[in-house]
């Protein structure tokens, strides 16, 4: 890794210690709803084109 990435990695390791897994997993529920909505809209658009 170059210095810039190493620096970033070092910063990331520090951040990793603060990684809030509970929050991430909790927020995943609503993220899933948005992703599903995006997927649904895309499918509907595809069907409409056919």
């Amino acid at each position, binding site marked *: 890794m170059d210095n810039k990435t190493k620096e970033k990695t070092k910063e990331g390791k520090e951040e*990793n210690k603060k*990684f809030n897994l509970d929050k*991430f*997993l909790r927020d*995943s529920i609503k993220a*899933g709803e948005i*992703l599903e909505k*995006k*997927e649904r809209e895309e499918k509907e658009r595809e069907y409409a084109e056919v």
Partner: protein
Amino acid sequence: MPKSDLFPRYSSAILDANILMQLARGKRAEAYRPIFEFLVKNGHEIFLLDASKFELVGFAGNKTDYDYLSNWISQFTILSARREDVEAAIVLSSFYKLLDPSLNVKQISFCDCLYAAQLVRYKENIFLVTADIHDFPISIFDIKHIEIIEDNRRATIVAFVSYNDEKWKSAQSKFSESARTIRNANI
């Protein structure tokens, strides 16, 4: 879960976007908790490729959804693909096609080749966590560990993929050989 010494301590992990999509859409995010706990516990910094951010956040359609999804993945470090990675991704897709001529364009995504390019670039310093084992041929990469996640009565296979120098060199050699084969056939 993998043993803690499966990868060098403090090596980095890159997440395939499909893991986050499966985790979120399956509404069983808790099932994936051990994977993240393994990464955090062993000091593996978790990266997301910028192209993955595009897959996850792109086409949000409105600012509220865009902000929510951006914030959701904001705890991961974003790794930007470079020009050399794009070149490597193009070469890798050609390797894949050489190794399996039946593959079509839709089966080899640019993003998957970009992940593979990160493995080639950072070698033992990075490994990939993916929910699609088939996107990374074992003729080039190693599947170091497989974890089965029960996700709404469906089994999701989560694979830990890493670089293998010997396999990579062999693939490069086969690729070079293919040029000679074609040249000889044209004489």
